[in-house]
């Protein structure tokens, strides 16, 4: 199968549906809060009651324009909502209000970082639409149940160009898109709760062929891991279908993560015909240059720019920069700690980044766009300064951090109260060294006989005697001179 895969090139385009983080729904005042009892956030509009009419949420439009600008799209001054007509129990009006002919944003691109270098992935369009409700199917019941709390929640649908050539590129694109949407504050990037959803259009073609092959649409991929697995599976499947001289069927397939396979949805007798037409209840959406300029001016730094700055201005590795910039609150926290660290920022960048990446990110409570860290950024800066000044060792610093976090006090206070300052008093350390040497004559003899590895044994004993507070450099020097006789 892998041999077949080598002869075919995958062509992948992703469609992402991202919820816009508004307080109220796209066309009515109902709350968008997640997790409420079913059908408690509903009204005549989002239930499709006879006579109800939609009124557009300004913030949803602003957020969608932010998305467009962040993705380098042209923002259309006059766009239109259209009705997509189909019947489904979770669709209360029998049509979804979406955009069709004149979408808000068109023709953008983002850059992804691959090992071979940066790659530009086109964005065909990013339009606004309303979400449907939710159907649930209790096991063993002859009925399905419909909850309309999600009905009318604003989404932006981002249609990527078929520029991706591997599952790895697809995953990278998706990560970058998610990081962008989170950085500009419009989406919480939550794949599990469905506020960031992805469908993949996948086809393969013989290497060297210009035309695209027949594509399948993959649905139900709700994690980054599954995006890669599902696409890889589909590429292998399609390649072997072609290799066997058969044709790929254009169809929608669902990813089953338990079985690690895609399988076709029961195909309907007829193709869908959505009968799009302009929604007569909603005049064109007109946005002027001043409106767009204001949104542009309020645009926060995008992840790519932030990464570049971390590398160029702060000297971080591209890996560290990418990890920090993957979540806007993590990057903010890092920068806040660095600012507290003060003057020698470039010098502090690497150790502070290490703290954030290796320790604080692991214990942080990250919930959507919010992140709560174990200690305030100022305390992290103080901790690193205590290390820099030689007041505490790195080992002690980890313990100080734990205690500072637990008690909610500054690291300096912990150090002071517990007397954790490193002992650099040569006389005190020398006394400890002499005691250790006197207590272990056999080891001293062996060491002097050439078993140099025993040096660590003496260091450990001295450190224990000084309760870990002996300055390691001083301990080393003294032991060397006392044993070296």
């Amino acid at each position, binding site marked *: 199968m892998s041999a077949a895969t080598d002869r075919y090139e995958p062509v992948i385009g992703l469609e992402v549906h991202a919820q816009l983080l*508004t*307080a*109220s729904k796209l066309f*009515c*005042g*109902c*709350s*968008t*809060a997640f997790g409420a*009892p*079913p*059908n*408690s*956030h*509903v*009204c*005549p509009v*989002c*239930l499709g009651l006879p006579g109800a009419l939609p*009124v*557009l*949420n*300004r*913030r*949803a*439009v602003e957020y969608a324009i932010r998305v467009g600008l962040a993705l380098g799209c042209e923002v259309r001054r006059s766009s239109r*909502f259209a009705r997509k007509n189909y*019947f*489904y*129990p979770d669709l209360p009006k029998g049509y979804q209000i979406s955009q069709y002919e004149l979408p808000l944003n068109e023709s953008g691109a983002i850059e992804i970082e691959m090992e071979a270098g940066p790659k530009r992935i086109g964005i065909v369009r990013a339009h606004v639409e309303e979400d449907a409700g939710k*159907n*649930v*199917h*209790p096991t063993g*019941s*002859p*009925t*399905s*149940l*419909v*909850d*309309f709390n999600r009905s009318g929640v604003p989404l932006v649908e981002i249609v990527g160009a078929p520029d991706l050539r591997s599952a790895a590129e697809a995953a990278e694109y998706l990560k970058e898109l998610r990081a962008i949407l989170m950085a500009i504050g419009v989406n919480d990037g939550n794949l599990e709760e469905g506020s960031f959803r992805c469908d993949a259009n996948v086809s393969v073609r013989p290497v060297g062929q210009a035309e695209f092959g027949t594509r399948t649409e993959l*649905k139900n991929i709700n994690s980054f891991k599954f995006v890669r697995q599902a696409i890889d599976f589909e590429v292998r499947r399609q390649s072997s279908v072609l290799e066997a001289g058969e044709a790929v069927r254009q169809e929608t397939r*669902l990813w089953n993560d338990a079985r690690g396979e895609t399988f076709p*949805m*029961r195909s309907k007798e*007829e193709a869908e*015909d959505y*009968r799009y037409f*302009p929604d*007569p209840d*909603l*005049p*064109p*959406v*007109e946005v002027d240059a001043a409106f767009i300029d204001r949104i542009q001016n309020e645009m926060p730094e995008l992840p790519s720019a932030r990464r570049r700055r971390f590398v160029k201005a702060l000297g971080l590795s591209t890996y560290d920069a990418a990890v920090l910039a993957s979540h806007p609150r993590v990057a903010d926290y890092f920068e806040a700690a660095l600012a507290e660290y003060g003057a020698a920022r470039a010098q502090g960048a690497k150790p502070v980044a290490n703290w954030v990446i290796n320790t604080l990110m692991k214990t942080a409570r990250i919930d959507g766009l919010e992140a709560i860290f174990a200690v305030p950024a100022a305390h992290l800066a103080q901790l690193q300064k205590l290390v820099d000044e030689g007041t505490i060792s790195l080992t002690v610093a980890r313990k100080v951090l734990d205690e500072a976090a637990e008690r909610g006090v500054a690291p300096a206070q912990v150090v002071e109260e517990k007397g954790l300052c490193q002992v650099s008093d040569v006389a005190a350390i020398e006394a400890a060294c002499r005691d250790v040497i006197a207590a272990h004559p056999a080891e001293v003899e062996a060491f002097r006989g050439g078993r140099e590895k025993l040096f660590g044994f003496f260091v450990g004993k001295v450190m224990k005697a000084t309760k870990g507070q002996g300055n390691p450099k001083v301990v080393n020097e003294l032991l060397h001179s006392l044993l070296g006789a």
Partner: protein
Amino acid sequence: MAERITKAEVVKVARLARLELTGEEIERFSTQLAAILDHVAMLERLDTRDVPPTAQAIRLEAPMREDEARPGLGRDDAAAPAPAWEEGCFAVPRIIAGDEK
């Protein structure tokens, strides 16, 4: 004149519109829709290549409301007109797995 709409098309359209039609209705609608379509065919006489479409007769732009959450109907009012209501939800004949969008 060629038939403007065939019976097969009437059946297809009825399926799209989720209308169960009797054989008699299919016959009748085929004839009647053909007559109406014959009439509307007069529009073909007009050259509209450079004419923009009119979706709304008065010039308007979509108003935008502030993003403020407000209380809606409440579950009891949502439930009251429901033909079938179970566990706080509208109940429908079970959706077959393959019907999933």
